[in-house]
């Protein structure tokens, strides 16, 4: 795995992980967004038999990143389960993975729009609305009017770059001087291009992305991305 990339946001030093997680080393706080656990089984019950391995894939990655950085707290920025029944469909092994993670770090569940309140038996702490720490405010969905020091998820940003006739796409972090947005961490979470109107409205001026592609993180100004203009 390549080295995480340092960024400075609202006066705080953070690290961007190629796996799609954000780290606040000083606080030993690991931040991830949109795990969408049990998305596979959510489709399966409607007859679309996606491989049932998404939850374990996501949790294994999360555990790996948390261990690598010796995280004390893991903050999930909402939509941790794909739907409200998700926790009930969790199989025993995956539940054990979650319990093990909760034993080594404090889990903080921010409520999202897919999973208003993860059930208490999963362990950890549920936070409604916003979670504030130092100069940073963590939310599920970015507030259109409030911005300074806001870190959010929900939109699953992705971006593309054209490299000599070939297009390279991937999930990405998006940031400008006010706002930082995380890519979806879940194995089955799709993406929304950063130039889609919903995202452009939140990042109306210059912004940069940290593109996760080819097992590396590449920082790119918005003007360099495919779809700009």
């Amino acid at each position: 795995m390549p080295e995480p990339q340092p960024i400075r946001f609202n006066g705080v030093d953070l690290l961007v992980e190629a796996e799609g997680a954000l780290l606040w080393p000083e606080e030993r706080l690991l931040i991830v967004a949109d795990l969408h656990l049990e998305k596979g089984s959510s489709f399966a019950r409607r007859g679309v038999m996606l491989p049932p391995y998404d939850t374990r894939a996501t949790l294994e990655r999360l555990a790996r990143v948390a261990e690598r950085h010796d995280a004390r707290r893991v903050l999930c920025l909402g939509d941790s389960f794909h739907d409200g029944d998700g926790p009930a469909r969790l199989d025993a092994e995956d539940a054990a993975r979650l319990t093990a993670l909760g034993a080594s770090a404090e889990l903080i569940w921010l409520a999202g729009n897919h999973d208003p309140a993860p059930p208490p038996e999963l362990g950890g702490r549920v936070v409604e609305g916003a979670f504030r720490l130092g100069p940073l405010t963590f939310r599920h969905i970015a507030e259109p009017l409030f911005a300074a020091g806001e870190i959010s998820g929900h939109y699953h940003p992705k971006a593309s770059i054209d490299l000599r006739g070939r297009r390279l796409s991937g999930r990405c972090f998006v940031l400008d001087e006010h706002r930082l947005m995380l890519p979806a961490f879940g194995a089955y979470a799709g993406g929304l291009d950063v130039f889609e109107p919903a995202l452009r409205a939140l990042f109306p001026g210059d912004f940069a992305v940290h593109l996760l592609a080819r097992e590396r993180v590449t920082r790119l100004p918005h003007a360099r991305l495919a779809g700009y203009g």
Partner: protein
Amino acid sequence: MPSPSAVLPPLFADWFARRGWAPHPHQLALLEAARRGRSALLIAPTGGGKTLAGFLPSLIDLAERPRDGLHTLYISPLKALAVDIQRNLTAPIVELGLPIRSETRTGDTPAHKRQRQREQPPQMLMTTPESLALLLSYPEAAAMFAGLGAIIIDELHALAGSKRGDLLALGLARLRRLAPDCRRVGLSATVAWPDDLAAWLGSGGAEVARLVASGGAKPDLAILATREELPWSGHMALHALGEVYEAIKRHRTTLVFVNTRAQAELCFHELWRLNDDHLPIALHHGSLAVEQRRKVEAWMAAGRLRAVVATSSLDLGIDWGDVDLVVQVGAPKGVSRLTQRIGRANHRLDEPSRALLVPANRFEVLECRAALAALGRGELDGERPRPGGLDVLAQHILGMACAGSFTADALHAEVTGAAPYAGLKRADFDAALGFAENGGYALSGYERWRKLFRDSLGRYHIVSDAVARRYRMNIGTIVEASMLKVRLGRGKVLGEVEEYFAGTLTPGDTFMFAGQLLAFEGVHGNDLIASRAGGGAPKVPAYEGGRLPLTTHLAAGVRALLADPRAWRDLPAAVQEWLRLQRHRSELPGPEGLLVESFPRGPHDYLVAYCFEGRNAHQTLGMLLTRRMERAGLKPLGFVATDYVLAVWSLEPARDLDALFDQDMLGDDLEAWLAESSLMRRTFRSVAIIAGLIERKHPGQEKTGRQVTFSADLIYDVLRKHQPDHLLLRAARADAASGLTDIRRLGDMLARVKGRIAHRRLDRVSPLAVPVLLEIGREAVYGAALDHLLDEVTAELLHEAGIAPAPAARTSAS
């Protein structure tokens, strides 16, 4: 040969006589076979009354013993062809006063008509492989097909060996069970492997009689001897279009075939620029709106056009009597394909077809010459049908469950009757059944949501009608890239382009489409909005696929020609000069072995391998070579593949070529590269859609036209890690190995050249290497270079920001 009067009933003999026709010998032979209840494969050049030959036995049977119920099923790869055939058959039915109802059944048939066709089928039904699969999925299928007497499969050569062919063969195996005495007729163009085709047609049944119609007069073929300078590279042949235009003027009707849609657009545009006489010249390719294509075909049939510029979209289809010249712009790529295209001219068997080959560059001159030589010897080429796909099998199994319950043993016995599945292992069948049942995953969490259940007698049933409804909405094996409709303002739809092409445009960019210069305005939903543009340098839509690789057979012809200087006499002077210069400065590739040249140029070192194994195999080789060079510290930067040559450039020169080209690259390196490649991801997506994991349509969603898509990439990554032997991954690997990677061909070559690599170290580029080096600026750069390019971008940006020194050596040549 029996005399016509002995075979044809008087009513039909009179009808032939009234029309001034004499029945062709193959029409009578087919009738004889039918009288004995035998299936038959008729191989004939286009024309020659092939379709009538297929229908004649059915018409006679129904004239002699009129009866209700479905009697004859006609299956064509093209919807339009089914419609045309139905229309053409109306003439004999009406003129002979036969009590026969004939109808078409395609994706365009309205629901009420479909319903009626299932309840009261016509005697003759013209349909496609997909519509047949749909009909077979209804419980009424058993009753509907019980009295079927004949199945006619048109353009069989275009179906056998493809996934559509797999689906059809499985359908035939089912029909064999529903109507055991039904005979089959296959109609095919000349092919290199008639035995395989006959076996395919016989799927699950009796032996097939083979009938070969005479080829008629020998075609009159020529290669354009251009007055212009012969280009070194490129595929557009723009230099020769003035001469092509002259040829069009000298003929009544000309078919101008090109190899890609981009070529079609440019060629059409250029011909109109030259068209001072305002000749009616039209354009036809698969991306144009269907109505537009039908219009062009109708004009053509009515003799209103002087020329049509077309891609393989016109390789098949109804015959036009009036075409007196076929022009092939660009290299033919295969002998069989060229034969079929030439066959589109002049369908009167006693007159020769005329064809003109127009090579676009020097290598293509060699290829055209080799193709003509092969045609002269009556040789053909092309791939033999491959084993059937497991994804298609999974789709079929679900369809059969929709028709009625089955036991695994009985269905297994039935599907192995289909020729593509004759070698199917029981374990693979069970895996496909497991997939249809509940996804077939090792982790068993999905039992409660499964689609099939097994009763106490071991019979499989669908769990609900909803399963059948969804299956029927997603039938078929044709998987298209995401497409956008090209719309003029808010009005007319001109056709479709791949979504990713739209992604390369910014508002105001101009591009050529449907023969017009358009300006891009934006994308709204599923539409690409454009307006007519005044001028400017257009981008041309680059389409995925459409580029067939050079066949092994034709490649061998090119090598033989290169190696035999006596045969150069017929080549244009410029080409002879080019080859002589190559012999002087380096050497010529031999008929065996492998010539590799290496030389420095600018800051890089180039390696050019004259493999002649086709673009796809070269691309795979390029990927594998660059990985190996990376490990050897040679710092490869990228490569470009043509049909003839592979060129790789690197910072350090390669020395030990035997080690570099060792066969062991097909082991772990291949696995590792393939697993990550975008090609494998595309292949997986197709497989997942065909098998039914990803649905194209979903009940309730069809009205909005929006597809329910789930990223196949995400599934691929997860499945690969957690169940690498899953049915879909195995199906995708099988497809990748036989298709776009051409691994088999590459493996054959590496084995052949082992110990026979001739390495020429040169101080500069050789004459033969010039064409491929010229492609570097035009073709996408592949391979390890992508990572370097990302790093380059980063370094550039840092440099702009004044953070790090400029990247000196890492820029690649272009």
